[in-house]
């Protein structure tokens, strides 16, 4: 795997998609296996020995067929192997589709465990798998078929996450700060500054009235080339703030992994596209 891998015969730089795949795949493994167990992070406790491993209880209402414990164990192991192959870029498409699908199948045996973070990890993995993300930064690169639509698919889906998050906040009880107060009272947010802000109804409202439009603006800002850098900076700032204030599972990290797909083309590739230089050689 080399950083300069590029789709053969293509002038499109697929490295951002490739790195996005590597980052999301690594997070998939971090969230579903005990890789970080020594750090004793609270939201990763359910990843030991593997996420959705049977614990002897009979969960409420599994989605679909309730699978026997030994089948669930096998599926969790297969899911992990597939996620590993996806991350490395070996049989990327089938591996990613299998990892994402088995992510849903195993977690939906106990549907209350499926949260937004897992949805982003599982669906994001499947989406990257059907694109040309396996054509770059991969141990076994797959041929690129449609680099431009690949990039647009990943970018559009990522932008839509911000859009729908903003739309969900366009409600009186969110915009006036009462929903934020609810999360704060439950201890979802931490920090002295946060406490000071949340104690003031006016400050809560100001935060709410700022956050919703920022999220709403992120979708077009990220998708339009002229505003992409501003969009990326805003999105990063948003996730850093969330991480400091709330640590929402690995959600922020997963979004950053997806945001890699928005990174601008390096100058050398831009000149290639303009026809002033031959395409960069493919190194394997």
């Amino acid at each position, binding site marked *: 795997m080399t950083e300069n891998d590029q789709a053969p015969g293509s002038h499109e730089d697929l490295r951002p998609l490739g790195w996005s795949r590597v980052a999301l795949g690594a997070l998939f493994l971090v969230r579903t296996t005990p890789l970080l167990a020594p750090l004793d992070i609270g939201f990763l406790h359910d990843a030991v020995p593997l996420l959705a491993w049977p614990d002897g*209880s009979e969960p409420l209402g599994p989605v679909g067929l309730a699978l026997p414990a030994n089948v669930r164990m096998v599926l969790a192991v297969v899911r992990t192997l597939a996620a590993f192959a996806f991350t490395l870029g070996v049989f990327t498409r089938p591996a990613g589709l299998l990892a994402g699908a088995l992510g849903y199948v195993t977690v939906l045996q106990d549907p209350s465990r499926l949260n937004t973070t897992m949805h982003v990890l599982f669906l994001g993995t499947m989406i990257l798998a059907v694109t040309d993300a396996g054509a770059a930064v991969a141990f076994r690169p797959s041929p690129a078929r449609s680099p431009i639509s690949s990039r647009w698919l990943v970018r559009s889906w990522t932008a839509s996450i911000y859009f729908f998050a903003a739309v969900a906040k366009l409600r009186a009880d969110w915009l006036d700060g009462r929903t934020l107060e609810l999360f704060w009272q439950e201890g*979802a947010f931490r920090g002295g500054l946060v406490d000071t802000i949340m104690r003031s109804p006016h400050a809560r409202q100001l935060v709410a009235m700022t956050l919703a439009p920022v999220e709403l603006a992120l979708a077009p800002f990220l998708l339009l080339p002229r505003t992409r850098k501003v969009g990326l900076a805003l999105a990063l700032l948003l996730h850093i703030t969330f991480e400091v204030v709330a640590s929402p599972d690995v959600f922020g990290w997963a979004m950053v992994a997806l945001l890699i797909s928005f990174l601008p083309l390096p100058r050398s590739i831009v000149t290639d596209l303009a026809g002033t230089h031959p395409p960069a050689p493919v190194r394997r």
Partner: protein
Amino acid sequence: MGRTGHVLIGFVVVFALPIASRVVGRGGVAFTMYSRSASYRLRLTTGSDGGPARPLAPTELGVFIGGSAAEVLAGTEQFRHGPFDAFLRGRLDDIARRACRLRPEARWVEVTFDERSHLDAPPVTTHRRVPCPGP
């Protein structure tokens, strides 16, 4: 996969899935990021032949079921803010059957589920009465 496939998948994941989730399932897979203010309350009552109806605390039932159910049902005796409103509403019969197991002498279980979709929404109540196999 080519451009057509990407366009079709894009339509599903960017539009169809989140919109359907918001319309049908309260946004479970529509990415809400700290926007939910839904709250819910669960009331359980068991009864046996000739005996008085007895309330059953959902927290106690959660501990009996174990695993994630303990977390999901904890504190739902009173209105609780959380993400499990649609999840619980869709599993009231299953909850009643578990209550039958906890109280094997019961002949029936009644489940009443009150929920508010947001802070200004009026409560909506769903009611179930499930017969138990009995002793």
